[in-house]
C-alpha cells in the first residue's frame, strides 16, 4: 500500500479543460472519493493516476515514486472499470489470474491467490464460467476480484456500482467498504452518486469543471460546503437556496428574503461585510434544519407563516414543500405530522444551521 500525490495536474482535450490545477494527497490506507457531476474531470484524474492519460503538466507520485513516465502496468495499481471490462474469452478463474500470469508468478502461487480472491468475494462456484454466463452483480465481483488479487499499492475504481440495480448497489456499497478496510487498501473511488461518496469515503474531493472545489471528510462536506454548488449537490433533497439582501435595523442584522427577513448572528453580518462582493447574498438551509408546526410559537421565537404547496410522504419522513415568495422550500419533518396542501404552517430556521453564500462567487461566507 502507498499514498498518492498529485501536484498541479493540468489536462486539456483540445479546448476542453478536463483538469485544472488538481492537487491531491491521498493517504496510505485511505478510502478517498472523487465526486462530481458527469464531465467534471474526475474520471480523467483517475486515468491520469492509472497512466491511461498523460497530463499536460504536473506530477503524479505513488508512494515515493514519480510515476509520470511509467506505463500503467508498471505502476502497481489495479483498476475496476465502470463496464468491468472482463476478458470475454477467459473463465472467471483466468480473468482473476490474468494480472498474476502477466507478472509471471509461479503456478501454485497463482492458484492459491486466485482462490483467496474467489473466497473473499464469495464466487468460488463461478470459477469455470465465462463472463457471459454471469449476472451483473457477479461480473462486478469478478472485476473486483481481478483487482484485489494482485495486492496493488492503490485501487482505482471508476463508478463500479453504477451499472448495478438499486438494491444490489446498496448491498455492494457496504460490502466494498468493508472489503477494502479489511485488506487495508488505499482506494480512489470515482462516483457521481453523492450517497455513495458520503457512505463509503473517509474523505471526499468534490470536482466541478475540472477543478477541485473542496476536499474534506463527509461530515464537513455536508455541514460546511465550501460553495453553493457543493451544497446543492450533496443531500437528498439538497439544500434550499433563497436570494436575500443584508439589512440592518435597530443595530440588528437581518437578511431580507422578500416575504420576510431573518435575523442573523452579528458575526455573520461582520463576515458578509468583510468578504461579500455586495450586500446581495444567497441564504441556504438544509430541509432537516427547518422546523414547521401548526400552532403559532411564542412571540420571542422568530417564525414565519408559510403556505404548504405540496406534501410528499416518504414513509420514514415527510417532505413538505412550502411557498416562500416565488421559491419552493423543502422541509423534512416527522411523518406523524398531519398537514395538507394549502394549509398555513409556522416555520422556524435552526439558527446554527444556516449558510450564507456570496451571490457572485457562490462561495461560503458563513
Amino acid at each position, binding site marked *: 500500500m502507498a499514498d498518492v500525490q498529485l501536484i498541479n495536474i493540468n489536462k486539456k*482535450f*483540445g479546448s*476542453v479543460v*478536463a483538469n485544472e490545477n488538481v492537487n491531491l494527497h491521498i493517504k496510505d490506507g485511505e478510502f478517498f472519493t472523487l465526486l462530481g457531476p458527469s464531465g467534471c474531470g474526475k474520471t*480523467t484524474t483517475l486515468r491520469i493516476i*492509472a*497512466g*491511461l*492519460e498523460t497530463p499536460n503538466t504536473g506530477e503524479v507520485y505513488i508512494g515515493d515514486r514519480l510515476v509520470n513516465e511509467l*506505463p*500503467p*502496468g*508498471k505502476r502497481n*495499481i*489495479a*483498476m475496476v*472499470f*465502470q*463496464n*468491468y*471490462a*472482463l*476478458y*470475454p*474469452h477467459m473463465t472467471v478463474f483466468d480473468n482473476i489470474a*490474468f*494480472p498474476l500470469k*502477466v*507478472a509471471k508468478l509461479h503456478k501454485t502461487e497463482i492458484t492459491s491467490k486466485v482462490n483467496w480472491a474467489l473466497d473473499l468475494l464469495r464466487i468460488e462456484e463461478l470459477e469455470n464460467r*465465462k*463472463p*457471459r*454466463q*454471469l449476472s*451483473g452483480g457477479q*461480473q*462486478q465481483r469478478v472485476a473486483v476480484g*481481478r483487482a484485489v488479487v*494482485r495486492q496493488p499499492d492503490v485501487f*482505482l475504481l471508476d463508478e463500479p456500482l453504477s*451499472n448495478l440495480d438499486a438494491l444490489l448497489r446498496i448491498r455492494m456499497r457496504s460490502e466494498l467498504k468493508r472489503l477494502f478496510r479489511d485488506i487495508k487498501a488505499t482506494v480512489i473511488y470515482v462516483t457521481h452518486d453523492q450517497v455513495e461518496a458520503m457512505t463509503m469515503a473517509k474523505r471526499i474531493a468534490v470536482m466541478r469543471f475540472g477543478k477541485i472545489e473542496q476536499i474534506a471528510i463527509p461530515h464537513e462536506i455536508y455541514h460546511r460546503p465550501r460553495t453553493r454548488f457543493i451544497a446543492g449537490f450533496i443531500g437528498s433533497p439538497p439544500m434550499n437556496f433563497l436570494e436575500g439582501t443584508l439589512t440592518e435595523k435597530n443595530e440588528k442584522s437581518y437578511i431580507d428574503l422578500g416575504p420576510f427577513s431573518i435575523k442573523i448572528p452579528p458575526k455573520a453580518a461582520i463576515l458578509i461585510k468583510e468578504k461579500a462582493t455586495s450586500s446581495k447574498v444567497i441564504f441556504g438551509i438544509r430541509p432537516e434544519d427547518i422546523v414547521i408546526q401548526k400552532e403559532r410559537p411564542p412571540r420571542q421565537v422568530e417564525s414565519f407563516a408559510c403556505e404548504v404547496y405540496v406534501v410528499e410522504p416518504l414513509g420514514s419522513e415527510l417532505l413538505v414543500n412550502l411557498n416562500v415568495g416565488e421559491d419552493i422550500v423543502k422541509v423534512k419533518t416527522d411523518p406523524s405530522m398531519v398537514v395538507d396542501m394549502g394549509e398555513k404552517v409556522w416555520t422556524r430556521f435552526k439558527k446554527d444551521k444556516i449558510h450564507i453564500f456570496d451571490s457572485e462567487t457562490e462561495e461560503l461566507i458563513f
Partner: protein
Amino acid sequence: MKLRPLFRSAAFTLLVIGVAFTIIFPLYVVTKNAFVEEKEISGRLAWPWSPIPQTFTTDWVYYLLSESDLVSSLTLTIFSTLLSVGISLLLATPAAWALVRVGGKTNTGFRATGFILTFAVMSRMFPSITVGIPLAVILIRLMLHDTVLGLAIGFTLFSLPYSLIVMKSQFDTIPPELEEAAMVDGYSRFSAFIRVTLPAAAPGMATAAIFSFLFAWGELTLPLLITSANRPLSVMIWRYLRGATMAQGSAIAFIQLIPVLIFTYILQRFLKPEYLAGAFKY
C-alpha cells in the same frame, strides 16, 4: 385467430427451405455430375433427370488430379488465396484499430477516419477489369507477373478495403477499457492488443478472412489479366467449360468447392454473435 401466426411460421419455414434449396441445389448438381458417368449427364440416362445418381465413377476427378497443369493451378490458387487473406488481415487489422483508437477515448478518434473509409468504399466501385490492365503493367515491371505473390497482391487490392471496413466495425464494438484493463494488469499496449483485443475481435477477423478468401478463390477477371502461363483454378474452369465436357467442368468445380468448405467450416465457429457478451456492462 390462431391461424395467422401458424400461417406466418409456415410461410417463414417455406421461405427458409426455398433459400436453402436455391443455394444447395446447384452445388448438389455439380457434385453429382462430377461423380456420374457421361451417359447420365448427356447420354440416354440424362432425361428424365433424377436427383439420385444412377451411376458412379471417380474417373473425372481422378483424371483431373493426374493432370499436372491442373494440380499446379490448384496449388497456385491455394497459395495465392491464403497469402492474400493473410496480407489483407495483417494490414487491415492494425489499420482499423488505429482508425478507431488513435486520438484517445475522449477525442473523436482519428480525424481522417471518415475520409479513409470513404476512400476504401470508393476503391470497391471500380470493377476488376478496369484495374486489371494497369495492374498487369505494374506487376510486369516489378517482375511479379505470373507469380503467386503478384496474384496475391492483386487479390489483396480488392479484399483489403472490405477487410478494413469489417475490422473497423468490429473494433467499434470493443470498448477501449478492455485493452486498458490489460495494460493496467501489466501488459504493454502492443501485448494488450495481441492477447486481449485480437481474441475479442475474432468474429470480425473470421468474417474478413472468409470474404477475402471467397473473393480471391472465385475471381476470374483479375487473374485472366494478370497471369499468362500460371493460371489459377477459376481461369481453368472457364477454359474447360469452353472446350471440355460438362462432366469435366463439374469435376473441376467440385475440386474447387472442397477447400472453400473446409476454410469456411474452420472459421465459422468464431462467427458467434454472443462471443463478446458478458464482458461489459452498459
